[in-house]
């Protein structure tokens, strides 16, 4: 049995829309009942319609937010999340941001200094590297985010739809890099709407419907179940 990385049992997450007074709030359950586990070296896909709670789930795995109900066990691992608009401080230059993100993601100083030139080269943003990030185009930000994440040695990579931004050239580059990483011995949790990506890369697929994880089936069957449920939806809309 491979080492367990994440284990979720009946996890739920409630967003409280806060009115100005702390005791008056509206609740909204983004996740209701999600259970699954991830083992070392696995590539796990997550599918579900928009608003099913996929991004919330990734943020829980990344320890950015804590679930309100349920139990999550997390091995002592470093986790990086890649998503649209990586976490930059817009006032800092690209170089400073590389340094800061590197530290935040648990790299040490020497490590970053060794790789900073490679990161800059991969990001391919020229002289802009010494400009504040607020002057970057969204494509430049995406490239910088991707190349930082690529050079960080995290045990677990969470990927939230990165393949959906940027121009064709970037998409191609990004998906090649990510595929390279996934095929190495990393543990990956991947949110995507691309069925081809799922079939090609994932060992397992978790389907989330309306905040609940559905019973796990082999990859092909899960994809089929997802496509059927989407079709049903479309019919319902037409009717």
């Amino acid at each position, binding site marked *: 049995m491979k080492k367990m990385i994440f284990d979720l049992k009946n996890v739920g997450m409630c967003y*409280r829309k806060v009115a100005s007074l702390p005791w008056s709030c509206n609740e909204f359950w983004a996740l209701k009942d999600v259970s699954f586990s991830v083992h070392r070296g696995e590539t796990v896909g997550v599918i579900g319609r928009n608003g099913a709670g996929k991004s919330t789930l990734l943020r829980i795995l990344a320890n*950015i937010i804590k679930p309100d109900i349920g139990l999550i066990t997390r091995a002592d691992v470093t986790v990086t999340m890649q998503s649209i608009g990586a*976490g*930059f401080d817009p006032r800092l230059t690209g170089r400073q941001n590389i340094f800061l993100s590197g*530290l935040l993601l648990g790299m040490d100083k020497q490590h970053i200094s060794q790789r900073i030139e490679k990161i800059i080269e991969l990001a391919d943003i020229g002289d802009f590297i010494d400009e504040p990030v607020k002057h970057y185009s969204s494509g430049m930000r995406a490239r910088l985010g991707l190349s930082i994440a690529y050079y960080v040695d995290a045990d677990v990579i969470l990927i939230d739809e990165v393949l959906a931004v940027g121009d064709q050239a970037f998409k191609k580059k990004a998906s090649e890099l990510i595929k390279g990483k996934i095929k190495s011995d990393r543990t990956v949790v991947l949110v995507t709407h691309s069925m081809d990506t799922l079939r090609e890369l994932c060992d397992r697929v978790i389907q989330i419907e309306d905040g609940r994880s559905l019973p796990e089936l082999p990859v092909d069957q899960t994809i089929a179940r997802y496509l059927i449920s989407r079709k049903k939806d479309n019919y319902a809309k037409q009717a």
Partner: protein
Amino acid sequence: MRRKNYIFLTFVMAITDFKIKYDNSVLGYLWSLLKPLLMFGTLYLVFSVFVRWDVENYRLYLLLGIILWNFLSEVTLNSMVLLEGKASILKKIYFPRWIIVIASSLTSLLTLLLNIVVFFIFFIFSGAHFRTSALLLAVYLAELYVLVVGVAFLLCALYPKFRDIHHIWEVFVQLGFWATPIIYPIAIVPPKYHPLIFANPAARIIQGCREALIGPSGEFLGFTNHIIITSVAACLFVAGLGMFNRLSRSFAEDL
């Protein structure tokens, strides 16, 4: 290994914050000196030329009060806008959230220390002489730091859920400026109000610093004063950090 990284990270954040703060402005860092000095100049004009207090070394007395109060108001007021500035990072990466508050407080501490250097330049030129009790300044500054960071944790934690706290605290700081003997000598306050004024630990610290450095040494150099200040500061720090740790789990959602 991990913990060592966090401490280094805190320093990196503090230094980059310091750089950003004065980037893109012509006078740059000089502003952090100019602001208290301009305030000092105005108040000095009003309370030394128009109104006269009978205080020895009033210039030093006033300058020290302003510098210390400025530090308090800067750290506590900044603490509430910190999270919004760092929101994009908070939402993407997990790291202990206290790093943000400590880093920002270190940035202000650096400004405070530079201001204290300026104060000592004034000190030398005004012909006041050093006494051994001046060493107590270090103790008072340490107490002030713990006190202020404790309050900053508390405010920072409450702000995302309860934004009114920003307005409330702004008023509070303004009232506090007048309710603390910063521009006026404590001697003009009727003794029956003294307990009220010195219920504020910051007033004790400011008064103590003055007595240690300039003023006639009075009651605030005593051991009891330090015990009171330290225990209040420690309580606030523990309460603030506790509240912060409890509420920080939902920062990413509330921003």
